[in-house]
């Protein structure tokens, strides 16, 4: 029975995250990064790691703070509000969750490197323009004690700069998940010029060697390890999207209170008041689904699929509404690159597609509700 209120520790985490992000990673920091043509700020990730963020899901025995998925969601949400760029989702959430589901000394060592900020990961699953892990076509052919990986991945978020790749490929009797260094021979990474100015890559695998040690979990059984990792990533991404919505909403309501037209503040116009109030309602409802998903991952991890899909579906649609309304209520200035609201719009669109779009997740919910 999950409780949908923040604990004292979580409330403190919110305050700490806001304090850091407002100072070190405001939207201006993202703008500067983009203007410099960069997609990642290694120094900032080190600072986040020093605060325990990289190890939020890493056991204390491996140097993490082990605060759970609801706490990871809080961090993702706060980062969404200021559009802070980091490999948090790929590394601290998805890879950490996958590695935690493998209990061996190598995984423990890998988790320690995540917590310290010394290793970053990217999840290489998508092969077409839509998320569908079960349709994976990339092949890992058995060769001796190992495998040869050949195929193409796309929309590998954080993939151009990550130290390691989690790669999903077909083996003789199922799917297998590999954890390999990104600079292994035969791997070609092509950075994508993304609308949200963040790291993503198309990656070609040409006869890439992988040993049995590179397999995460069991051969032909990727999902035991990967499913919880993807679900954790979807929940945290939903939290980030809720943060994106809240950030865009905050900017927009602020604008309604300062912009004058026809001799009065535009926030006095009922047409705009009602649009803003409706958006706030949607944000409130989505916040419930997002917190619920985090709690379920922490307390009832075997029954989370519907909760996670509910959160991702809601967060996707709410973020979309927030950025559309945001640009509309800002008027012409909202269309300019000099104004930040457009950044939220572009991030919301990328977040909508990553790890399953609205249709994918709404269908998951419907399936669990028997239709």
């Amino acid at each position, binding site marked *: *029975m999950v409780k949908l209120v923040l604990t004292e520790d979580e409330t403190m985490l919110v305050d700490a995250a806001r304090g850091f992000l407002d100072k070190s990673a405001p939207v201006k920091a993202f703008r500067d990064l983009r203007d410099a043509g960069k997609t990642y700020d290694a120094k900032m990730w080190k600072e986040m790691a020093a605060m325990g963020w990289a190890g939020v899901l890493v056991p204390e025995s491996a140097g993490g703070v082990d605060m759970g998925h609801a706490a990871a969601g809080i961090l993702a949400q706060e980062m969404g509000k200021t559009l802070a760029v980091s490999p948090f989702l790929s590394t601290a959430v998805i890879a950490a969750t996958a590695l935690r589901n493998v209990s061996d000394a190598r995984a423990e060592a890998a988790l320690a490197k995540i917590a310290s900020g010394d290793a970053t990961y990217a999840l290489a699953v998508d092969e077409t323009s839509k998320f569908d892990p079960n349709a994976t076509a990339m092949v890992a052919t058995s060769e001796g004690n190992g495998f040869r990986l050949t195929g193409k991945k796309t929309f590998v978020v954080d993939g151009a700069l990550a130290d390691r790749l989690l790669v999903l490929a077909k083996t003789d009797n199922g799917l297998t998940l590999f954890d390999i260094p990104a600079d292994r021979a035969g791997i070609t990474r092509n950075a994508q010029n993304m609308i949200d100015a963040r790291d993503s890559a198309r990656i070609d695998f040409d006869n890439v060697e992988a040993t049995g040690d590179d397999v995460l979990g069991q051969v032909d059984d990727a999902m035991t390890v990967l499913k919880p990792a993807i679900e954790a990533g979807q929940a945290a991404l939903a939290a980030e999207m809720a943060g994106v919505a809240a950030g865009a909403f905050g900017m927009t309501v602020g604008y309604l209170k300062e912009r004058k037209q026809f001799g009065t503040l535009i926030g006095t116009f009922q047409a705009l008041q009602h649009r803003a109030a409706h958006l706030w309602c949607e944000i409130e409802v989505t916040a419930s689904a997002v917190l619920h998903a985090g709690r379920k991952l922490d307390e009832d991890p075997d029954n989370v699929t519907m909760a996670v899909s*509910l959160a991702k579906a809601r967060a996707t649609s709410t973020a979309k509404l927030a950025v559309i309304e945001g640009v509309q209520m800002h008027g012409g200035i909202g269309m300019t690159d000099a104004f930040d609201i457009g950044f939220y719009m572009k991030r919301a669109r990328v977040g909508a597609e990553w790890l399953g779009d609205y249709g994918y997740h709404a269908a998951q919910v*419907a399936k669990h509700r028997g239709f």
Partner: protein
Amino acid sequence: MQSEQELEGFRAELRDWLEANCPAEMRGGEPSEASICWGGKNFEFESDAQRVWLERAASKGYTVPTWPVEYGGAGMNRAQEKIFKEEMDRIEARNPLQSFGIWMLGPALLHFGTHEQKLHYLPPIARGEVRWCQGYSEPGAGSDLASVQTKGEDKGDHWLVNGQKIWTSYADKADWIFALIRTDRDASKHNGISFLLIDMEDDGVETRPIKLISGASVFCETFFTNVKVPKDRIVGEENRGWDVAKYLLTHEREMISGGGQGLSGGRALGAVLNESLAEGQEMDTVLRADAMRCEVDALAIGLTLERYKDQAEAGTGAGNASAMLKYMGTELNMQRHELLMAAGGSDALEWDGPLGNRPADWLRTKANSIEGGTSEVMLSIISRRVLGLPG
């Protein structure tokens, strides 16, 4: 705080009791407005099962699970209430009793009433013996509720009440009415109103049903002509009735929102839609997509209701939650009924046809975004009080 073990014991006991005591006819199906058990002196039960279910549930305090035991409830805490809801949903049990007494007057009395008033008025509500209606709106005071004109003159030991109420839901079936009465005509709009309790059988009370687009007469006009209301039938202080009214409105709005699930409890929309399709027929793509969206929103609004209850228990609740729930819940419920009509096709076009009350229920929901404060009033409340937008 109870341990997990104690709560699981509570769940097991409750589950056994429900299995043994909730009649099969009171489980499952898409409940209609017409199948609600409202209680009251003159209520006609649709079946023995409905009567038995009410009696059994009331004997355990399950009609009002969170009310104190001495006032007819089961005294459940938040954790137990959650389990109660889960176990009721699990067997798709219908509510044994729903009423304005439970949703609106009860919470207001628990908050503002004296101990004597609680002992006198609450247990009959919990047992379904007395049915209440709400006298708020007047012909000249709709969305602008505080401009009520029905007056109560101070006559020493009683008020002499004269005036007219409108949209008094089920006034023709109710035993008592709680009403906003202007008891000080000189005070400012919000400061001269008292919250009075009036027996519908009193001399001078007359009610006239209004025929609605659904063919039913859910709403009435209620007239007060020289009605004598004894001085002890007031909730809260004289001329401070607006505080009670506002408090009650938040409960009314949450009730109307229904957690976004309308009358259906925890039932999935898709399952209900599938049942109403002709044999061998499947939902078309658009209906299916709309249903999925509706289901996603319903689940999230349901979680929001739970989140607000958890926040209230933790003392961290945000104000004005009820305006949001009312707006989102009713808009969703109306959408849901549009989908039910679409799934029913021409079968849903006949009064009392193959799908029974479906068209009447559909038309009834059109009042959802008007009653208890229109959607637009809710958005204006949020805009002003939550977002702090000017004027």
